[in-house]
């Protein structure tokens, strides 16, 4: 059974394909998965816990951006903010233009006490994305993203 079917069986929700939300698209978010999982957490915590337990296995067997997003959201909801941050960093390395991942990263960092970096991403989103791509920082390395965000902030 593929991950899409397994996800549906556990949660009752549909896992759609991940779409990149570029700034130029002028859309708030491309999918409602994060919000749907948040609602699920409050209506049926048990299902989310099952999902959480499955994630590490799924991440090993499938490096699809859908799975990284799913993991990032689930860890975030379960207050595993460091793991969540790493998933969003991975997503950014796969699809640097996707502002949804950048915003999600910023809020995960807020929870981790990285307030200055979080704010820099939120307040300088287009510059952060532009320079991340320009400097080819596609490693998913947090230190590189942090230094970039703080540098942009100091010049903003």
């Amino acid at each position, binding site marked *: 059974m593929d991950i899409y079917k397994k996800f549906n069986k556990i949660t009752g929700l549909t896992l759609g394909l991940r779409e990149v939300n570029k700034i130029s698209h002028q*859309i*708030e978010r491309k999918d409602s998965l994060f919000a749907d999982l948040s609602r699920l*957490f409050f209506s049926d915590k048990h299902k989310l816990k099952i999902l959480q337990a499955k994630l590490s296995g799924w991440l090993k067997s499938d490096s699809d951006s859908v799975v990284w997003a799913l993991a990032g959201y689930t860890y975030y909801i379960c207050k595993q903010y460091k793991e969540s941050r790493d998933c969003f960093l991975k997503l950014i390395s796969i699809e640097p233009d996707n502002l949804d991942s950048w*915003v999600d990263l910023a809020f995960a960092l807020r929870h981790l006490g990285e307030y200055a970096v979080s704010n820099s991403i939120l*307040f300088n989103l287009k510059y952060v994305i532009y320079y991340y791509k320009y400097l080819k920082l596609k490693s998913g390395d947090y230190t590189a993203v942090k230094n970039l965000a703080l540098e942009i902030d100091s010049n903003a």
Partner: protein
Amino acid sequence: MLEAYLPKKFCREFVKIKGYSGQLASIMATVKGLKPCMDDWVDMDRYDDYLKACKKYGLFVRPDAVFKMVPRRLVQGKIVGSDRLITTIALGIPFKKAPRKRDYQAHVFISKKKKLLDRCFVDGWYPLIIENRLQEKPLIDNFRFGYGLGYPKCCVDYFHKYNNWFKYSYLYQSFKNTQGSFFSRFCNPFLKNATYSYIYHMPCSYNCTLTVEYGKKVREAIKEEEPDFVKAIDYHLKLPVLIFYETRIYIFDGCFKNGKIKYRRAYYTGTDQDNNVYLARLQKGDSLFVEGRTVVILKGTRPVDRIECSQSEFAPEHPFCIQFS
């Protein structure tokens, strides 16, 4: 009727500094340690004075972003996400980069305990316009924020279910969820932006046990310090109310009996005058009643106006009348 309230002594500084008394009861409840944490707004040119006042009352303070309010017409349809703007409409500026000027308002969190402050802060980002886009926090943070602010669990849980502006009028859902015909003034949230309220959350029902418990404690704590303020709050909370939706609420100098509000004057309770679209029509009459989704306004026994409520896809109006005891 809804003038600002200036306390004789306790927390007087906050009203002086902010220039209005919104959230005064919440500030008092936070100082008294009844409310674990709250968020507030203060003009940047008075920020240092605000810090001093907080220090005097033993409060920890943490600033978040700075708000520059903008009129709705300037942003409606022009920014990504503007269709979902309901109450506060503001451009966001990082705190460290904001000018220390009036009209630039710091969004701050205050608490008696540092740990509670930090917990509330991380979930407390407020939607702001940044680079032509409404920047919101994840929904899960929105849900958890209620716990950080000390709202009863039943109310936070109910909020998760029904806070959907496309499907429900939340305040009407709470009305439907109220068992019996007793409405406690401790569960009256309709004047929360107009100073006179013991609570700042929207309760799950208008006689919610936990909200009543909390409201009573706040009342007692305020009474010890400012008994006249308690009298003023109690008076306002017992006035009849007509609710259309969250930001379109009117109170009346009058009484509610047999399904009809009889009144001398109507007052808008909100802060955004753009939403105050019915006051002039309500003032034409001296009584009203709700019939389905229509508010019928009478002068004497003669109908003088009928407000057919909006059934728009977003923020539909579900009118209802209520008076608390």
